[in-house]
């Protein structure tokens, strides 16, 4: 049974703008799913509905088979962690250690255990050598990892990453892949919004496309990136290798290795 489920969910902002219309999706434990789509397609709104930061106008959100309607956002956030798109919306402590430890301190965990968990998570996120620094002394990219660590350390069942690849270099992008795999190995659900199509090809087996406030397709990267009609409708582009293959008359190619395979 799906652990996290959106059932015919719609959302309207207070100014009357409908951001999400009749969206349904399900996620099983241990799954890693990418959500892609144009800016303004409703991706961030959809994931904020998952952890109760926003509440649906219609439809319902279920976590572990229970509707979250009667739960507070704080209660839902214990199970569904959301890493903000803009790290500066989330950071508020004066050291990285404190930032990562904050949620654990609130949970009443003992100092020694907190220390162990903070250090383990910091190492996973590449922050082990900067724990005493002020978060704003670090680059945007590193600040993003601080916010990821602050969520991951709380051990939620679902980790939602909102554009973690924005502004990341090659090594940081690889690190993101590692963090996601570390989470799924622990049977967590990882949901990632990204515009980096190469990252999607490399890291995901399931991709959800959103466009014009709705879910348009939920399939494998190969199915998505060779569904030209869908890409056109959603204003998305194929990854470069797919574009290359397509112009030379090949199909269903995704990676450099696939392309070498078909051209040889």
């Amino acid at each position, binding site marked *: 049974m799906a652990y996290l489920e959106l059932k015919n969910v719609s959302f309207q902002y207070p100014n009357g703008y409908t951001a999400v219309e009749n969206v349904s999706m399900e996620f099983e434990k241990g799954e890693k799913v990418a959500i892609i789509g*144009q*800016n303004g397609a409703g991706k961030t709104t959809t994931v904020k509905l998952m952890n109760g930061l926003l509440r649906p106008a219609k439809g319902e959100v279920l976590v572990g088979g229970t509707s979250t309607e009667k739960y507070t956002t704080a209660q839902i956030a214990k199970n569904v962690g959301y890493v903000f798109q803009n790290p500066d919306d989330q950071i508020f402590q004066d050291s990285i250690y404190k930032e990562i430890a904050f949620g654990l301190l609130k949970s009443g965990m003992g100092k020694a255990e907190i220390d162990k968990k903070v250090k383990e998570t910091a190492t996973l996120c590449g922050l082990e050598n900067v724990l005493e620094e002020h978060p704003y002394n670090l680059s945007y990219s590193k600040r993003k990892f601080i916010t990821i660590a602050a969520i991951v350390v709380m051990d939620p069942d679902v980790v939602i990453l909102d*554009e973690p690849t924005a502004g990341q270099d*090659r*090594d940081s992008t690889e690190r993101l892949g590692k963090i996601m795999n570390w989470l799924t190995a622990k049977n967590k659900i990882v949901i990632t919004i990204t515009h980096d199509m190469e990252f999607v090809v490399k890291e995901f087996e399931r991709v959800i496309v959103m466009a014009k406030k709705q879910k348009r397709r939920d399939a494998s990267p190969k199915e998505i990136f060779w569904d030209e009609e869908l890409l056109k409708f959603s204003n998305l582009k194929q990854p470069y*290798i797919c574009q290359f293959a397509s112009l*030379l008359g090949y199909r269903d190619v995704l990676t450099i*290795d696939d392309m*070498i395979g078909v*051209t040889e």
Partner: protein
Amino acid sequence: MAEIILKNVNYQYPLEEKEVVCDFTYCFEQGKVYGLIGENESGKTTLCNIIRGFIPELYRGKLEGEILINGRKISSYDSGELASIVGYSFQNPFVQISGVKDNVYEEIAYGMENIGVPREQMIKRVDELVKMFHLEELVDKNPYELSGGQKQRVALASMIALDPEVVIMDEPTSQLDPKSTEDIFEIVNILKKQGKTIILIEHKIDLVAEYCDSILLMHQGELVMHGDAKDVLTDPKVLEYGGQLPQIVLYFLKQGKLKGNEIPLTVKEAVEKILKEAQR
């Protein structure tokens, strides 16, 4: 005319022991598009802050070497004068929004208002920018209600509004979807045609390859590689320095049939090359 010369530039932030920019020497010529690449924290943003005078003016610290803008020492400019020559868009668009304007139209006009551009001229300019940046549907919205990608486009338009000779864009597409990213690169092309000098910090290497004339690769504060895009971005050494290469280049490097700058940089070049060879 805008030319920027840096000679043996070194910089150290206050209270830090390590140099963030080491012995940087380079001449940026007018009208070219420069792709400034390299890993996070390799000194790219710091270098741009030196070029726009925020270092040492605002950040303090120890700056050595010579920096000339249009033949004049950078220290001889006052910050207002320099700001009208060198435009800069922040890496994080969320911090560039002024916070004092409640719609996008006025946000774009804000810089012009501050320097006293006449009203009629201001309206004409904002209308142009709205069209250029595809902001028609957003003009009446509050800048804070925009998505990350929309904010980024508004922030860029606000900077271009002041018509600087040198345009520095620090990761201008980090929050953008692929389509809007290409729109920004098209704007880079338009600015290039207007004769502007453009310095672009960008991780999306496939687009850097398509739009930039020259590449500068930084690694731990040093300029480790520089040259024409077709020379630098076909060289696997870039990877050793933590840089990235375009997907198409990676394909040809792995396939192993082409070498050096014979390797096409973009999908378009690659397809043309293959079709041409097939005809032979």
